[in-house]
């Protein structure tokens, strides 16, 4: 047979559409199901007579609508069919009973879902000239048994999906997004681990199929580093150590964001201009992962970000090791202030500056990782995907409904003052540094909150007594900004330009 949709030969069923395309259509319809269906699809109830009639209507073009008395129906004069068994009073396997028995074979546990796919197929039939009654029930039933994997794996998701969406829009008047969507569970660590354990089958590209991942327990526990809505796996690809970032939450536009970001970095030679940033590659549909959905188990391709692995320690660990080494801290502070200045002058921003995202390599050079919140001019007017690590952000940023700060190249101004100031303070007065509190360096959300309540924590008192002009002027600005809901924050370089 030749599939009407992908035009490829297949031999699974006597059907106008191959298993693979049917699955794609179904998965797609699951994901973007119309409001017409979603209300009912989650309700697991025994099939009612009315639903059976409806299925019959859908599948075999019976004209059995609700209130019509089939015994007097023109199609089957004199026949009385038992709608539970499909048997006919005429005692023979008559046309009406055989058609109805077929309908009963369509999984009775959830006829609504079956109705839904028949409905979708009906709409598609015009485009593809599929006669839905030609699709064997066996094949439709197979959709409910996800244990059977799609046979011939093809990569024509691209061809079919946009067309399908267009069709659905046209026929169903469907909106592309809605709150009533069928839920497909976004994969988390365990799902990804399972996929990576079978990397030869689950990755698309050869380089990942052959990558060496670091396992703590082979095929069961991967070495990982946690992020806010991502986690990072170290691995070796073609001899080089890389970091693979996977997403553990569905974020709107994340795919588009990373594509645009990647293109922007390359087109504008960002890495050459700002060597503290690390080049990365974004793969839109690379790793196939199986998760639960409302309609059973679904395999989908998920994106990943590949980056060079930066050997080194995070800024908080660096400070913990070197808090009594004033010159090392000042060197890092200088690199940091230059870095944020370069970001802003290139009209871009990191969006989530905090010590775990700042890596100091063995040459004491600074590298920045985690670009989930990265700002580039293309994102102007959008919202930041995350509010950033709250111990380093202005308290308004995590407030719901707050429009502060604007998501633009000034996004790092507050966090850069906090980090830079902390480095200066520790280099000047290492006694103020609390080794037990090393992850926050010095300040914290708690301190910001109590300052907003008008309290003066001990730490602030101690800082105020340091005689250093730069520290005091930064501190003065920081205190001012914290008290306001949406302050006009000056850039680090502007605050310190006339101070030596």
């Amino acid at each position, binding site marked *: 047979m030749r599939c009407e949709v992908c035009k490829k030969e297949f031999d699974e069923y006597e059907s106008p559409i191959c298993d693979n395309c049917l699955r794609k259509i179904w998965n797609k319809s699951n994901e973007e199901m119309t409001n017409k269906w979603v209300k009912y699809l989650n309700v697991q109830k025994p099939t009612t007579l009315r639903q059976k009639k409806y299925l019959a209507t859908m599948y075999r073009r019976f004209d059995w609508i609700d209130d019509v008395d089939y015994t007097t129906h023109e199609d089957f004069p004199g026949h009385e069919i038992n709608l539970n068994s499909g048997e006919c009073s005429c005692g023979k396997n008559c046309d009406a009973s055989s058609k109805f028995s077929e309908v009963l074979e369509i999984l009775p546990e959830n006829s609504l879902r079956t109705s839904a796919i028949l409905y979708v197929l009906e709409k598609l039939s015009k485009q593809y000239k599929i006669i839905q009654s030609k699709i064997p029930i066996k094949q439709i039933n197979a959709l409910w048994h996800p244990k059977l994997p799609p046979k011939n794996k093809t990569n024509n998701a691209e061809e079919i999906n946009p067309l399908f969406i267009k069709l659905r829009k046209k026929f169903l008047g469907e909106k592309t997004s809605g709150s009533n969507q069928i839920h497909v569970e976004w994969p988390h660590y365990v799902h990804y681990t*399972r996929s990576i354990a079978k990397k030869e089958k689950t990755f698309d590209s050869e380089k990942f199929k052959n990558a060496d991942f670091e396992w703590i327990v082979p095929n*069961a*526990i991967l070495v990982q580093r*946690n992020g806010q809505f991502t986690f990072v796996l170290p691995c070796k690809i073609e001899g080089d150590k890389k970091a693979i970032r996977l997403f553990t939450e569905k974020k709107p536009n994340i795919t588009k964001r990373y594509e645009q970001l990647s293109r922007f970095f390359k087109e504008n030679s960002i890495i050459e201009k700002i060597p503290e940033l690390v080049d990365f590659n974004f793969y839109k549909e690379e790793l196939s992962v199986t*998760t639960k959905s409302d309609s059973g188990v679904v395999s989908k391709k998920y994106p990943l970000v590949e980056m060079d692995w930066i050997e080194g320690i995070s800024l908080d660990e660096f400070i913990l090791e070197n808090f009594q080494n004033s010159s090392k801290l000042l060197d890092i502070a200088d690199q940091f202030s230059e870095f944020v200045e370069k970001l802003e002058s290139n009209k871009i921003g990191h969006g989530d500056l905090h010590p775990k995202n700042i890596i100091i390599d063995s040459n004491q050079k600074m590298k920045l990782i985690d670009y989930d919140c990265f700002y580039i001019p293309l994102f102007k007017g959008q919202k930041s995907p995350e509010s950033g690590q709250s111990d380093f952000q202005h308290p308004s940023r995590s407030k719901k409904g707050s429009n502060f700060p604007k998501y633009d190249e000034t996004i790092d101004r507050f966090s850069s003052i906090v980090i830079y100031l902390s480095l200066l303070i520790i280099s000047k007065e290492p006694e103020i540094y609390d080794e037990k509190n090393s992850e926050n360096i010095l300040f914290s959300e708690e301190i910001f909150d109590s300052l907003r309540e008008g309290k003066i924590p001990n730490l602030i008192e101690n800082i105020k007594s340091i005689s250093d002009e730069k520290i005091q002027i930064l501190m003065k600005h920081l205190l001012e900004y914290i008290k306001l809901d949406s302050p006009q924050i000056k850039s680090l370089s502007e605050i310190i330009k006339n101070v030596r």
Partner: protein
Amino acid sequence: MLNALYNKRMSRANPGLMVFLIDCSASMSFPMVRDSTDPETWTKFQAASMILDNFLYQCTIKCASEDKYKDYLDFVILGYGDNTFSPISKISTSEYPISVNKLDSSYESVEDFPEQELDETNSPIKWINSDSVGGNTAMLNAFTKVKKIIEDWVKKHPDSYPPILLNISDGMANDLPRDDEDNEKLDPSPLFELCNEIKKIQTNDGNTVIGNIHLSNVPGGYAKFPVSIDEVMDIEDPAAVTLFEMSSAVPAPWLEKAQGFGFDIRPGGKFYIYNSDFDSFLSFFKFGTDPTNG
């Protein structure tokens, strides 16, 4: 200022302690009552080891960070049959409590992930030795051993979240003395005293919590989080009352989140389910181990 109890976050500096006692008596190899529509049957011991293996797996992956585990949790896992033993064959009883790190090298086997849904019963790593079942129900012996371990642990971790002990059983302790008046019966009072002593062991964040989950032989006839002993008095099985007496009341700060696990617990309700089916067992287990999710 008085701080709220059961409030401490488990961390490397102040780890938590989870104690699991698993009845490994012969009757644990009988089938577990599951949802009647589900054709798959497990023995009670299989159910317990699947749930426990998955918990251990979740703990290890949570701490799996760059070649070393972040040890935020210590474990004690003891089985009791004719005596008390470690159901993880690579760890001896005297090694407990162990940290997450130790789990890394002590599993029995690694199996392939299941193809289908991943839920709270799948773990590719099996720690619990499936040959552990057989013999009597030496529960008194197990609680005696565990009391010492908890006491020692609390001395080292005075600021930690209080230890949580979950006892998974399907019957009556039988390493008890005979009742003075009725020689046919066993006298559970040593077990009560022991449990009361364990409940008194405390950190600055509260007292040790003892939870009992009794697994079902026959469907129906639950007692869930009973408040008064009257609620279990009529059950013929002497284990029903014994386990009631042994259990702690559910700590007040836990009551709020109980609903999220499908439980409606009255204030003062015991941390105890009698005659639990599989689903309630799983929910009870998740509820009891929830503080480790900090």
